[in-house]
């Protein structure tokens, strides 16, 4: 048997082209709109400025043309049509009549699979190629000859189409219903994110110090749509060219996605070869996947419902709720388990002895897992990195800072150990005060260890702000306050890790609230700005300035309602602390910060009076006084 006969059947290919023309024709229209159509409109809208020199005008036109590729690099359309195409060409598997007719033909399954696979893939690729060709003409028509941008787009689009289509075909093989195939495709796209979210939420609910929210992780690429959406961008490369033209960036992942698509195709073929045709119209077409579906459904239902109910019933509750998680998680997981069984068998009465036993086993495994997590079998709660292995620690508490010096790292590790040892004490405090939000005050303290091996470790704690804890210099809170009291770090928090290299932009201001609650702002002149900055810097470095946590009662009486606002520029890449999470100055826009005045800002306040920005006898209100006025006015 020849290879061609073995793997390709031209009659079936022609049948596919005729039967599914609405799909490829619609996709062609979409491609023509998002690429040549949109590009034409954008370039057409560009008006040449006569004053600009020729080279500059050409560069501007090219920039317009390249920026017009932005709708075409979005992964959504190709993933949508990939799913439609993949499920359509294999739709004969979803009805016993069509499945029987097609498989009664003298064509091997390999040939059926590959012919249908190639048909569907070509439905995606040919319209993309045609759109590319038309766009080439549009660009040439406007005198743009830089085809490398379009070729890069073609490579990107083809790679995305290959991945999306292969994933859709793989999803189509797992089920016997078209709608379930589509759901399965979406689920596979977000499987990794879902699993990580459930694990993180469970860990966050049971393990002291673990965050319930999921951050970025190495495996994010396993959820392709969101990964491509986030990483493939049109951006200007920083190479100090005179005319900056954006480029399609983030395409490195396509090689790995190509390999993944090949693997998915191979797996889909293997499943197709072993597939029983009597599975047509079954929700799960592969018999060994049925228990996997039940167990995964149970875990997803348990994790999701528990986390949602936790969030709704105990939004302000800190600490451990093991019994709630165990009980509610088990009940909802069992519900999810039987719901999946009902979907598989398409009936409600599925509580057979065999299935009840399986559910019992499932719950036993689930409970064992939760108990192991609660008992910290993996020692995650106690885990603190070795001092020698740490390159830096990013902290978010009363304010944000980054520690790099060995002495600072050592002190931080000591505080962290103290917090871990105080777990029971703190949890008890929150359990006793969980219902009285007025009485209870707390702060969140997060640490991210940057390790020398390139990894990181993040922990997050809810800590009590009662005086008895804060004033105990040997206790965890006392040590944390001592660690946070660092004038140099205060300065860095407001003015970046390199305040010496900061350049004020002349757009700074002072904001005052008088005794009647009236608001007034004063734009600072360049000279005033510079002097205010120096005075504030001296106040901060003198050690009189302090930043207290939001809910700490001393903050109300130490902080004034008045504040200074500064705008400045920094060398690109300088670490800044005003945004949540680690951030670095990009160089695009100036940084804009506000600094609340405190009782420790003596020099700054004196200077404000000296410059006449603040009247000599004008009272500056504390935050407490301002809150009282605000409450009275509202009343």
């Amino acid at each position, binding site marked *: *048997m020849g290879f061609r006969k073995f793997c390709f*059947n*031209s*009659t079936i290919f*022609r*049948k596919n082209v*005729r*039967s599914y023309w609405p799909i490829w024709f619609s996709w062609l229209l979409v491609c023509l709109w998002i690429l040549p159509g949109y590009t034409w409109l954008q370039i057409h809208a560009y008006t040449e400025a006569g004053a600009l020199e020729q080279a500059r005008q050409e560069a501007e036109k090219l920039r317009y043309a390249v920026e017009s590729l932005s709708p075409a690099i979005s992964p959504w359309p190709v993933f949508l049509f990939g799913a439609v195409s993949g499920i359509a060409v294999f739709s004969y598997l979803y*009805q*016993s*009549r*069509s*499945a*029987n*007719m097609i*498989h*009664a*033909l*003298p*064509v*091997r*399954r390999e*040939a059926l699979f590959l012919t249908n696979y190639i048909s569907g893939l070509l439905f995606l690729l040919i319209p993309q190629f045609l759109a590319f060709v038309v766009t080439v003409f549009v660009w040439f028509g406007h005198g743009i000859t830089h085809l490398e941008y379009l070729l890069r787009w073609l490579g990107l689009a083809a790679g995305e189409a290959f991945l999306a289509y292969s994933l859709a075909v793989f999803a189509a093989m797992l089920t016997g219903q078209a709608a379930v195939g589509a759901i399965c495709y979406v689920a596979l796209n977000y499987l990794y994110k879902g699993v990580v979210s459930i694990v993180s939420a469970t860990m966050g609910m049971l393990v002291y110090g673990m965050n319930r929210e999921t951050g970025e992780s190495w495996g994010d690429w396993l959820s392709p749509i969101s990964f491509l959406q986030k990483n493939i961008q049109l951006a200007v490369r920083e190479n100090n060219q005179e005319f900056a033209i954006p480029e399609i960036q983030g395409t490195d992942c396509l090689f790995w996605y190509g390999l993944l698509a090949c693997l998915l195709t191979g797996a889909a073929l293997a499943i197709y070869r072993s597939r*029983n*045709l*009597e599975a047509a119209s079954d929700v799960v077409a592969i018999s060994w996947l049925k228990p996997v579906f039940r167990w995964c459904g149970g875990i997803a239902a348990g994790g999701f419902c528990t986390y949602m109910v936790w969030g709704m019933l105990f939004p302000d509750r800190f600490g451990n709720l093991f019994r709630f998680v165990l009980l509610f998680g088990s009940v909802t997981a069992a519900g999810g388990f039987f719901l999946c069984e009902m979907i598989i068998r398409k009936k409600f009465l599925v509580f057979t002895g065999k299935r009840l036993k399986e559910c019992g086993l499932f719950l036993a495994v689930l409970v064992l897992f939760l108990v192991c997590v609660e008992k910290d079998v993996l020692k995650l709660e106690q885990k603190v990195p070795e001092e020698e292995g740490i390159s830096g620690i990013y902290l978010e508490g009363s304010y944000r800072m980054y520690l790099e010096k060995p002495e600072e790292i050592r002190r931080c590790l000591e505080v962290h150990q103290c917090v871990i040892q105080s777990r029971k004490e703190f949890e008890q405090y929150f359990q006793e005060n969980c219902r009285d939000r007025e009485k209870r005050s707390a702060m969140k303290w997060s640490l991210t260890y940057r390790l020398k091996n390139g990894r990181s470790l993040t922990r997050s704690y809810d800590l009590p702000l009662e005086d008895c804890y804060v004033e105990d210099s040997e206790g965890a809170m006392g040590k944390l306050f001592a660690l946070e009291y660092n004038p140099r770090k205060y300065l860095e928090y407001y003015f970046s890790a390199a305040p010496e290299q900061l350049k004020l932009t002349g757009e700074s201001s002072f904001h005052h609230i008088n005794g009647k609650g009236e608001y007034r702002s004063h734009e600072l002149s360049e000279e005033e700005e510079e002097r205010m900055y120096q005075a504030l810097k001296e106040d901060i470095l003198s050690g009189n300035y302090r930043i207290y946590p939001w809910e700490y009662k001393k903050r109300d009486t130490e902080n004034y309602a008045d504040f200074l606002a500064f705008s400045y520029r920094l060398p690109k890449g300088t670490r800044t602390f005003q945004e949540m999470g680690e951030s670095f100055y990009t160089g695009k826009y100036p940084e804009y910060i506000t600094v609340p005045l405190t009782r420790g800002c003596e020099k700054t306040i004196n200077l404000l009076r000296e410059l006449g920005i603040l009247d000599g006898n004008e009272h500056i209100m504390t935050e407490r006084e301002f809150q009282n006025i605000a409450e009275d006015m509202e009343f």
Partner: protein
Amino acid sequence: MTDMIRVENLRKNFGEFCALDGVDMHVPGGSIYGLVGPNGAGKTTLLRHIMGIYRQDEGSVLVEGKPVYEQPDVKKDMILISDDLFYFQQADTLEMKGFYKGIYPGFDEKLFEKLQEVFRNIDVKRRIRKLSKGMQKQVSFWLGLCSSPRILILDEPVDGLDPVMRRQIWNLLLAEKKKRGMTVLVSSHNLRELEEVCDYVGIMHQGRIRMERSLQELQGCVSKVQTAFEQGMPVLPETFQVLHMSNLGRVYTMIVKGDSEKARGELEKLHPLFVDVLPLTLEEIFIYEMGGADYGIQEILL
């Protein structure tokens, strides 16, 4: 005559349900083999295995000594016309002809044109799904015959066809069989029709072939005997196998297994008023055989 289709110990389970429980079947080449059995006996499942659609759990399905499953060289000579017809969404007869022509190397275009006379009521440019069920069935016969199969497998083939078209189709099949030595395996509940055309019959029940004989043998091994005695029915000899007995006054009607002449001889020894041996229809054989297999007609008063 060598077996064109041989099925040995074929087993198939759908989950926990046993659909085929060790089927053995032999279809001689060039014959018409009728597969009969009650609803749910497993006939359609068996035919789908023979067509290589389903993969068996156990056993073998051989066509001319070769396995069928995933063997295009074997399947290219086989056509299945099922009760559950499928045509592509927008396809008309001409488009389906093009498809069959591309798939079956022996497709006979001249025969297609010739048969247009027979199927002249069918508009070849009309979407097949828009045609009536009977017309759709005619299209499947038309295309199936033109594909020049050596084995034609029919599952409830003439359901939905009018009597004239039924006769027409059977005539076509018989002519093709005669002309090309085509083997026909047909599953049907219309036993009177099968009786007219079949050379061999297999009776299937509960996933197994319970009896497989030539029609002649089958009719020879069961007979209907009518007799009457002066003093009521005497005790019959132990060798006398009665499948069913009923009486109207002194006249007894019996369905007797075994040679009919031997049965007549045995009865005559008991001095009856008269003995009459009547021919048995396939339908009667089926009903009485299935009665022996706990599938008899229940006397229910409503």
